[in-house]
């Protein structure tokens, strides 16, 4: 039986290489996010944002851009017979879960590395919020990756795939979004970053991630059964 580390590295490497060569999801996600910022600029009729409004615009945009990526994460497995390959290979099947979640984490991180500076240039007057924001982004990415992988693997086999992922995912990530916006609203404060409650919100998000990591890890194998 192939050790999990080798299998994990192989699966993750395959996904990253495929994405690098075909550029299937990332450009669309980035373009979507930037266009959404422009729409927000006009619909809110503002050229600068601060406090909870800045947090709201950023997190809503990141959420919907991420869903675009999450929709597509298992499509290649379905189309090219990847699921059958995983079932046949002498590996622990949960490796697919960890590999896909890690790939999704990396895609979201790349998305944010591009989109958050664009957001700062468009809407923020002072960039001191960005460093502590990294902690929030990483924690939320973990939650999105885990839940996104779980939901995507359930939805990929049905016909209404693109509809099901947002339908199922959005209520599930609401507490994570509450924690993210709670933590970042203070950061975008006009008078400089305010860390009131920052730690407890991060803790809530971390707890959320931990619970769903365990749940996802435990149930994923049942989703692969034929």
């Amino acid at each position, binding site marked *: 039986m192939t050790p999990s580390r080798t299998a994990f590295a192989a699966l993750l490497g395959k996904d990253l290489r495929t994405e690098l060569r075909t550029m299937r999801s990332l450009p669309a996600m980035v373009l979507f996010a930037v266009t959404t910022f422009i729409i927000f600029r006009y619909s809110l009729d503002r050229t600068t944002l601060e406090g909870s409004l800045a947090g709201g615009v950023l997190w809503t945009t990141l959420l919907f851009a991420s869903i675009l990526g999450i929709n597509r994460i298992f499509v290649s497995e379905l189309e090219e017979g990847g699921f059958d390959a995983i079932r046949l290979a002498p590996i622990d099947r949960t490796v697919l879960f960890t590999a896909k979640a890690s790939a999704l984490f990396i895609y979201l991180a790349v998305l944010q590395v591009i989109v958050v500076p664009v957001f700062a240039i468009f809407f923020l007057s002072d960039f001191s919020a960005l460093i502590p924001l990294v902690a929030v982004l990483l924690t939320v990415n973990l939650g999105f990756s885990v839940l996104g992988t*779980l939901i995507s693997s359930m939805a990929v086999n049905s016909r209404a795939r693109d509809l099901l992922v947002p339908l199922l995912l959005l*209520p599930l990530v609401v*507490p*994570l979004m509450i924690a993210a916006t*709670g933590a970042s609203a203070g950061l975008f404060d006009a008078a400089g970053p305010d860390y009131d409650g920052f730690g407890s919100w991060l803790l809530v998000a971390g707890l959320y991630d931990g619970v*769903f990591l365990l749940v996802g890890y435990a149930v994923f194998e049942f989703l692969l059964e034929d």
Partner: protein
Amino acid sequence: MTGRGLKTLSIATLITLMVGFALVFLWVPMDADQGFKQKIFYLHVPLAIVALLGFVAGGIEGFRHLRSGDRRHDANSYVFIHISVTFGVAVLVTGAIWAKASWGHWWVWDEPTLVSFLIVFLLYCTYYPFRYAIEDRDRQARYASVFAITAGAFVPLNFMAVRMAESVIHPRVFATAEGGLPDSMLLTFLVCFAGIAMLWFTLVKTEMVGKRVSGQISQLRRTLNEDAGRSGGRIAPSVES
């Protein structure tokens, strides 16, 4: 779940609920603060608690289904969630009535309990389109169990996260720091709670018996080679022995 005892359970439920309502309207003292409209509490809170416990029970049945592969646990999970979603509608409606009477608005956003419950309710409403989108029966049952487990784990987390955001107006009657409940009200509440819980069990049992009977009818039809195409079209889980 068999039909045995359904009649007794229904009668017991009816009696408990009638006793509960009699206590509410004839015996328990009027709340000094809110007056008559406080009495909706005896309906609203038991419905909410039973609905949430029902969701968690649906998750437990989903777990048992994955463990054993026995389809009956999947049918249980489906029915538990179904009845709890119905109770959820009742919670939202009774809550809105109480909110309008007490605070002047049908809905308020800065109340964590309301928002938490709404999110949980919406999540479980997605259970149905999710289930019906998957055509293969076995896979449908397995995926639904996974969803029920995930959503069951989500319920406490959700309440915790939303509560952290703010907590002001929604009455926290059972928190000891805020005074707790006088004995007469506690007794009335417990009777109503028992009545609503029994109502939940009665409805669950009724639905399960209904499914069992339709399953038996489909099986008989198939045996008689009659109209087989129709039973193949059903998508909700059935119970066949």
